[in-house]
């Protein structure tokens, strides 16, 4: 490897896509495979500018199927490999990621959500939550981090490689077009310098020695002949997924001790929610928030705890109930009323959230 | 854009045998026509086009009404009318 891309802590003002490219470098990613799609393009563009300087590689593939499957190949070869996509590209990405899920291949995918369904808009949404968490013909045995700032995009992209390689589930960093394209400040750093060890990678194929002589050959597959064989495999994976869950779920909460309105939101929308909740709380209103950072696995117990003390839950998202469904699923059994403020495909301002909470609280704006 | 009332600027060229007409509402000022004119007859005009950029105008003397500019305009902003023919047609 060439010289360290980042030395010390460096304050930077850049786009989210640039932050992802720097994070991948900082994490020691070896190779990126990708296919252009807005609003993710600049990740590739920064990576291709930076990569040669640090002996990193890049391959632009013919489509997202190929981007995903080459990423799978890169990981099989024992490299920290990643890709990035969005929208219709994320739909296609589900085929390779279903293979990664079945075979426990630690791929890392950055998703910058755009409007949906179909080509829709190249701009923004939170409509790829169900897709990213549960896409493919499986049970969603993946890890999905939803970021809400450039700092987090940087932090969680690094973390994604570690989670993936430690637990061997495909891992996603879920952001959106706003985060991708906007510029704000963050601090870049080398995780190793900060004592954050990178989980070492390991080759699945091409290890030293002659297979059948020095060692057993790797015989990797995702196909089973008999139903029960598959179920046993799934049972094992599900067990490991559930054992991992308490170790990796992350969330953030505020004012959840005794709330009239508990607002649940993730990603960039969470920022508007946080502003709104703090503003209302400062006025003395009992308004708090809960933000899942891992959407998969979901911080179920933590949300249940916070929700149990609330009079009303308000789920705010730039989608038509994708987070809402998760919240209801995870809170089933409670009887706190849940309302959605659902704006599929468009941004949500703090003002809107404030207004909606006031309406709930019966106040006039 | 509405179909009626499309603004244009026209000018006699080729010794009065033809008319050079430019539709500023269509011209994006790309300059492709200027480069292709074999007579170097096109220059930038004071008249601004749809993006606020200059449109083109033909030199009455140089222009031979060959229609190359009309053909290469990706926006159909130029129309050359050969008058002689028009007369015949009438």
């Amino acid at each position: 490897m060439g010289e360290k891309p980042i030395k010390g802590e460096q304050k930077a003002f850049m786009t989210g896509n640039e932050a992802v490219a720097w994070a991948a470098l900082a994490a020691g990613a070896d190779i990126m495979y990708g296919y252009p799609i807005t609003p993710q393009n600049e990740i590739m563009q920064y990576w291709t500018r930076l990569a040669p300087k640090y002996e990193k590689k890049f391959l632009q593939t013919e489509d997202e199927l190929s981007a995903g499957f080459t990423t799978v190949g890169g990981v099989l070869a024992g490299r920290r490999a990643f890709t990035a996509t969005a929208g219709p590209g994320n739909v296609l990405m589900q085929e390779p990621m279903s293979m990664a899920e079945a075979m426990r291949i630690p791929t890392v995918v950055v998703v910058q959500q755009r409007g949906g369904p179909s080509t829709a808009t190249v701009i923004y949404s939170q409509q790829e939550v169900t897709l990213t968490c549960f896409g493919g013909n499986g049970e969603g045995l993946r890890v999905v981090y939803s970021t809400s700032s450039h700092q987090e995009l940087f932090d969680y992209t690094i973390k994604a490689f570690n989670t993936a390689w430690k637990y061997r589930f495909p891992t996603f960093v879920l952001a959106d077009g706003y985060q991708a394209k906007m510029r704000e400040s963050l601090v870049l750093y080398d995780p190793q310098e900060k004592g954050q060890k990178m989980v070492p990678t390991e080759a699945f194929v091409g290890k030293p020695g002659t297979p059948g002589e020095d060692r057993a050959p790797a015989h990797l597959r995702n196909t089973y002949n008999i139903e029960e064989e598959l179920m046993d495999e799934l049972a094992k994976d599900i067990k490991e997924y559930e054992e991992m869950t308490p170790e990796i779920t992350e969330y953030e909460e505020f004012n959840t001790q005794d709330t009239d309105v508990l607002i649940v939101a993730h990603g960039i929308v969470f920022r508007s929610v946080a502003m709104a909740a703090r503003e209302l709380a400062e006025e003395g209103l009992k308004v708090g928030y809960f933000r899942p950072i891992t959407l998969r696995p979901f911080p179920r117990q933590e949300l249940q705890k916070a929700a149990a003390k609330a009079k009303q839950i308000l789920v705010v998202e730039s989608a038509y109930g994708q987070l809402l469904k998760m919240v209801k699923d995870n809170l089933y059994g409670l009887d706190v009323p849940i309302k959605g403020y659902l704006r599929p495909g468009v941004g949500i301002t703090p003002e809107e959230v404030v207004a909606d909470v006031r309406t709930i609280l019966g106040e006039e704006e | 854009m509405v179909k009626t009332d499309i603004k244009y600027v026209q000018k006699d060229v080729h010794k009065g045998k033809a008319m050079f007409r430019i539709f500023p509402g269509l011209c994006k000022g790309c300059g492709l026509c200027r480069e292709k004119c074999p007579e170097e007859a096109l220059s930038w005009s004071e008249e601004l086009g749809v993006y606020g950029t200059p449109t083109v105008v033909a030199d009455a003397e140089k222009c031979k009404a060959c229609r190359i500019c009309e053909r290469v305009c990706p926006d159909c902003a130029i129309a050359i009318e050969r008058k002689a023919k028009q007369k015949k047609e009438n």
Partner: protein
Amino acid sequence: MDKTVKIALAGEGGQGVQSVAMILTEAAAMEGKEILYIPNFGVEQRGGVSIAFVQIGDKKIGAPKFKTGDIVIALSDRAVRRVNMYAGHETIFIYDAGIEGVEDDLPEVAQRVLAIPALETANKELHPRVFNVLIMGALIGATHVVTLEKAKEAIEKKLGYKFEQNPKLREMNFKALERGYEMVAGTGVA
């Protein structure tokens, strides 16, 4: 400045709106401010209106977009129609005096609606190319989000390589910045 200043700046594709935002936020960054800048973008960007949403303040910025700007600037008729929705009771709405036929599209609620002869000034006194820098000057005049000095530094950083070849350009840019600043400063909005 203890409040975050929210700016929406809109113009046609070629008018350099995003360049203004880039330089302005660069200047703010040099002053150690917190910034969030997001361009609007869409598939038809080519022929469409381009908007820059910029927020500058002392604390981490919250949401990337806002309902109401502190200052909204529109540089074409389509831009006026596209961003008048961002004007609220406290908003200063600035548009170019040369824009015609937008009388009915100007925001009714704004604190102040200001037509400035930016295009004309740029064309006549300076050069059409520095129109956007003049606008940046006006923006700074109306908000004081950065000092003129820092703005000049940022311009230097961005365009310095051009100035090397043609020092007159520097002069022209700085002059445009100052003219823009004065245009608004003179109106007493700031």
